[in-house]
């Protein structure tokens, strides 16, 4: 997905000096043409309502006649306070309209770093505390949302309580702040987001150089189950794969035999 910063025309030069080099900055006058011309999925980020108002003031009917095309591939990330009516219009017009209040958004330069990162799902770009449902809705860098119960943010050992009326995000989307209380985004997502947990575990497993991890990768690659190894208890295979025990040479040879591979090659997988 291509990411663009939508800016006031007279601010483009200023942004170019401070933002990540790969950020493409487009002035509001060129939005309509660029959005429709970009054939891939695109995300347009803009801060405040002024730029967006300028865009809409400049649009003619031709643009609205192509709104089906917009809905197929154009996403908007708007950092501003927006009325319910405004929100509805934007949600109807774009494939996705992510609206984040200025108070609980990352600073724009950090937000663009996250959106351009290949592991954007690991970070949080915005969020909102809802006192009615006692939840915190977080928007991850891959634009998916996750709801967290406020009860998870417990008073710490040094008696600091989270102040849910004072929520912000820091450290490039890696820290949640509730007044003087800080929580690690990694800890929160790991606990509540099955996608995050699964992806992180898979990434770690890929990098695991132990013999157990190699056996597991090979077994899965060959479509075998832990019960498919004659003469070896499946629980033993599980323990080996988890690194709880180091297999003997004879066991490695039996495993290699089933995997149809030379025992000395296992570690290369």
């Amino acid at each position: 997905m291509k990411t663009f910063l939508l800016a006031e025309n007279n601010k483009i030069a200023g942004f170019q000096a401070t933002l990540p080099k790969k950020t493409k900055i487009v002035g509001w006058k060129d939005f309509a043409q660029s959005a429709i011309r970009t054939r891939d999925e695109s995300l347009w980020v803009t801060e405040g309502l002024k730029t967006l108002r300028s865009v809409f003031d400049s649009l003619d009917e031709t643009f609205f006649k192509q709104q089906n095309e917009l809905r197929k591939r154009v996403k908007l990330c708007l950092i501003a306070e927006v009325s319910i009516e405004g929100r509805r219009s934007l949600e109807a017009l774009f494939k996705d309209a992510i609206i984040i209040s200025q108070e609980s958004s990352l600073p724009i330069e950090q937000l663009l770093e996250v959106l351009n990162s290949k592991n954007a799902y690991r970070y949080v770009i915005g969020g909102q505390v809802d006192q009615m449902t006692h939840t915190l809705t977080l928007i991850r860098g891959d634009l998916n949302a996750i709801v967290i119960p406020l009860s998870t943010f417990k008073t710490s050992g040094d008696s600091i309580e989270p102040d849910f009326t004072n929520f912000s995000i820091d450290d490039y989307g890696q820290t949640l702040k509730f007044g003087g209380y800080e929580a690690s985004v990694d800890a929160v997502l790991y606990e509540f987001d099955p996608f995050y947990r699964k992806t992180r575990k898979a990434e770690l497993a890929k990098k695991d150089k132990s013999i157990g991890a190699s056996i597991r990768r090979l077994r899965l690659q060959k479509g075998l189950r832990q019960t498919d190894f004659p003469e070896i208890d499946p629980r033993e295979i599980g323990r080996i794969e988890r690194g709880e025990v180091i297999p003997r040479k004879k066991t490695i040879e039996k495993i290699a035999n089933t995997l149809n591979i030379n025992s000395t090659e296992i570690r290369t997988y």
Partner: protein
Amino acid sequence: MPYELALPGVYKGQGWKVKIRKKERVEPPHVSVIKKLQTWRWGLREQAFLDEEPPGKLVPMELIKHLQENLEILITEWDQKYPYNPVNSKGKR
């Protein structure tokens, strides 16, 4: 307040931060060394990086030395925040 270790000016200027936050993945005890999109977990028991990624060699040696010099303060801060998982509970100090 969250604990943030004061860093020498050069590292602060480069965007490095060392924090113990209130809600972390608690075991094992560690500080978070943060720079831009990356976070390293530096173990207070092991005095070493806990994860293979991101590579520990990306953190300047002088900064690691600063962590070691301030180890006692960091341990005290961790123990205050996580009294049920203190650094010395496994007798590794």
